[in-house]
């Protein structure tokens, strides 16, 4: 399991290839979040962020068969079209990979301490994100 909170960009292809290198892996599902339309700065809570992401990944591993998982989240100043987040999950079969990837993303949105600030101010949390996480309970 790889978890990284970083300012620098990431190479999703390289991360996915690294996950596929295990012969037990038959499927890799991935999600990339991208900055849409408006530049932003991402703040986080160093220490808790990594701990929260680790717990979300562990929870996913307890629910689905996960062979490998990579979560990378960027912080700092980001502009439109920049990559923000990568979640990639490797499993024997696609069902587990898809479900675990979506679960991790939904929980990251509501449990990992990141905050977006745009020129217009701090981005408000959305109820739809809470609802997305609720459906896994």
């Amino acid at each position: 399991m790889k978890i990284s909170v970083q300012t620098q960009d990431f190479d999703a292809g390289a991360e996915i290839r690294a996950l596929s290198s295990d012969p037990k892996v038959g499927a890799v599902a991935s999600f990339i979040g991208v900055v849409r339309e408006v530049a932003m700065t991402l703040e986080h809570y160093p220490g808790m962020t990594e701990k929260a992401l680790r717990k979300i990944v562990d929870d996913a591993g307890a629910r689905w068969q996960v062979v490998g998982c990579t979560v990378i989240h960027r912080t700092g100043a980001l502009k439109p079209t920049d990559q923000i987040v990568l979640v990639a999950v490797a499993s024997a079969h696609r069902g587990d990979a898809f479900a675990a990837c979506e679960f991790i993303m939904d929980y990251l949105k509501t449990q990992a301490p990141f905050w977006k600030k745009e020129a217009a101010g701090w981005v408000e949390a959305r109820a739809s994100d809470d609802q997305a996480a609720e459906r896994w309970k």
Partner: protein
Amino acid sequence: MKVKVLFFAALREQLGTSSEELELPAGVATVAALRSHLRGRGGAWQLALADGKLIRMAVNQDMAQPADTIQAGDEVAFFPPVTGG
């Protein structure tokens, strides 16, 4: 008892501080009691930590509920609902 208190994002800006070491008076033993204690400073504290404000809390870097207890040496954080991803 002494605790470390952290503030993030909009809350950090409203309060004008990101962290402080705080000696708690006897009786302030839960996250909710600490929030109430800080609100008692008035001004920006009263506004930013008002009862109706949606604020998330963490104790020692785990999400916490208002009734969760705090111990000497704990790191307690207050922040707005998260917006990453």
